[in-house]
């Protein structure tokens, strides 16, 4: 089997050495926060104050209070500081700052998304003039077709992000209610629980109702197609919000699908223009395209640092920041540029100082498949507990090509193809669809480039696209001498696999196959199955 050189941290971590002690099975939150030494504890404290200020400013607006008591999923946002703590387990120095810089920004972005939803929501803020300029889009959808619209005049509302996607990160049980509702209405329990929960939210009438139109995407699976149908039916027939189906080819590596996909983008833009009354602006588009290219350059640079013995920006914060920036933003918001720059500076600083997340790096892993939302901190746990460093995850391995960013007549035509390419190769679809090459060959190429000896395979048990290739991963991993460590979960439903049941799959592999002892035994069993 392939082996990698063990890297030992010569510097003892400041503060406490065993963060597993801060969990208490009698509590649904941690017993206390981690002691990280004076400097880093003070930094973490100031970021906690910042998060409280974000939440405080939100709740000072009366319509947001009304929305809080109307929507069940809002309860999750009471646990934002608890959620942030999940991202910082054992972190010090640059790693702590990187986690806060990226994820604090995501939290502020989601908070703004909720405030926007409530402003236009017919049941809460009911600002009709605002709502008439809102376009609803899917949670798992690239918003490239909005890049050329003025953000001050046309508002992109990714309604499912705060309602389902982000809320499950902060509160592991909050989605179960919606899954039960969907299944009460006869939807099978073996589809992906993410779109199923979104369908349940729609059935329960727990989505904000706003917007002059909606754009849905054939995202990635049978579950999302099913969920979209249910959601579109209610939007269109009950609330009179016309819904455009952006039908994106799944075989995105085939060159002959590009023109069709580009035409779909043209149609989506025309649909938005028709319903909002606003016109596409090429100047705004190319400015956004330059920001997309900058974000791509920064992501490539981060991955290059991660291919060295001293990776800096990885795990859930890396994945969720990329998700927000690449897919939910798509170059539209200039604020991301400063954050991209700051994150890269921190990573370079950490690399030069040879900073490490844990006392030892014993294995270098590529994380493939889709992570469970309710144990999103798992990758930080893996490096702290076992010294397995997750260099990159599938959801962050997205487009690396530059798109046309100068306004010329030829580039305006190219722009439709670029938007189509980005849309086809969005997060999830770029590896789960497109055939054998993108799911398997790309993985082995990445293992080579990043010098990985382990593939941590998230096996999302309801995801047919990935589970269908289980045997091929096994066979090819064995042929290459790469450990394939399977970790099964059910994405959003902790009743099927609890957090500890998920971690135990890594524990068992490390003990029985690798014959190793944990770096930090206090983390091997954490009593957090009942915690939010």
């Amino acid at each position: 089997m392939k082996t990698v050189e063990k890297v030992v941290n010569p510097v003892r971590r400041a503060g406490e050495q065993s963060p597993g002690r801060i969990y208490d099975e009698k509590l649904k939150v941690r017993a206390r926060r981690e002691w990280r030494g004076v400097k880093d504890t003070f930094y973490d404290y100031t970021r906690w104050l910042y998060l409280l200020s974000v939440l405080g400013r939100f709740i000072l607006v009366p319509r947001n209070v009304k929305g809080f008591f109307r929507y069940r999923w809002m309860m999750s946002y009471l646990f934002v500081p608890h959620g942030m703590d999940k991202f910082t387990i054992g972190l010090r120095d640059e790693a702590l700052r990187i986690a806060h810089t990226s994820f604090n920004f995501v939290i502020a972005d989601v908070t703004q998304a909720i405030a926007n939803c409530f402003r236009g929501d017919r049941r809460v803020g009911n600002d009709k003039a605002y709502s008439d300029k809102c376009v609803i889009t899917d949670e798992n959808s690239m918003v490239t077709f909005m890049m050329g619209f003025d953000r001050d005049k046309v508002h992109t509302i990714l309604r499912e992000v705060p309602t389902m996607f982000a809320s499950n990160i902060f509160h592991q049980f909050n989605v179960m209610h919606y899954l039960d509702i969907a299944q009460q209405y006869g939807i099978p329990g073996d589809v992906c629980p993410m779109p199923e929960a979104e369908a349940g939210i729609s059935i329960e009438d727990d989505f904000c109702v706003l917007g002059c139109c909606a754009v849905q995407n054939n995202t990635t699976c049978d579950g999302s197609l099913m969920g979209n149908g249910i959601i579109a039916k209610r939007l269109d027939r009950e609330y009179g919000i016309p819904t455009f189906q952006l039908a994106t080819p799944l075989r995105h590596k085939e060159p002959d699908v590009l023109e069709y996909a580009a035409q779909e983008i043209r149609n989506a833009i025309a649909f938005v223009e028709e319903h909002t009354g606003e016109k596409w602006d090429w100047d705004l588009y190319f400015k956004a395209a330059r920001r997309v290219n900058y974000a791509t350059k920064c992501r490539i640079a981060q991955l290059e640092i991660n291919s060295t013995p001293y990776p800096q920006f990885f795990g859930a914060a890396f994945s969720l920041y990329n998700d927000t920036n690449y897919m939910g933003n798509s170059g539209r918001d200039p604020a991301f540029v400063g954050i991209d720059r700051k994150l890269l500076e921190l990573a370079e600083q950490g690399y030069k100082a040879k900073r490490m997340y844990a006392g030892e790096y014993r294995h270098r892993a590529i994380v493939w498949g889709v992570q469970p939302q309710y144990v999103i901190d798992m990758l930080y746990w893996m490096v702290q507990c076992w010294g397995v460093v997750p260099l990159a995850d599938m959801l962050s391995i997205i487009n690396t090509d530059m798109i046309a960013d100068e306004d010329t007549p030829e580039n305006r035509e190219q722009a439709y193809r670029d938007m189509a390419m980005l849309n086809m190769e969005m997060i999830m679809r770029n590896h789960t669809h497109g055939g054998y090459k993108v799911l398997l060959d790309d993985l082995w190429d990445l293992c080579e480039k990043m010098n990985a000896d382990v593939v941590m395979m998230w096996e999302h048990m309801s995801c047919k696209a990935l589970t269908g290739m289980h045997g091929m991963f096994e066979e090819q991993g064995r042929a290459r001498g790469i450990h394939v460590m399977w970790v099964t979960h059910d994405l959003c439903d902790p009743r099927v696999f609890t957090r500890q049941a998920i971690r135990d799959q890594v524990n068992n592999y490390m003990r029985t196959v690798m014959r190793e002892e944990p770096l930090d035994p206090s983390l091997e069993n954490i009593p957090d199955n009942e915690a939010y």
Partner: protein
Amino acid sequence: MKNLLKIPLYLLLIALGFFVVTFTVYFFNLDMKATAMLAPLLEKWYDRLERKQYI
């Protein structure tokens, strides 16, 4: 004049008081412990709300 000189001292005491209280809340996770006690009550509230279920 004497009272004016005391202003920085008061400000310092207020800042110190703020730090001691908020840091205690932060370190012992009192904010999240209080929220965890509130959550079951909120769940009951959401359960009582009437919804128009539709498929």
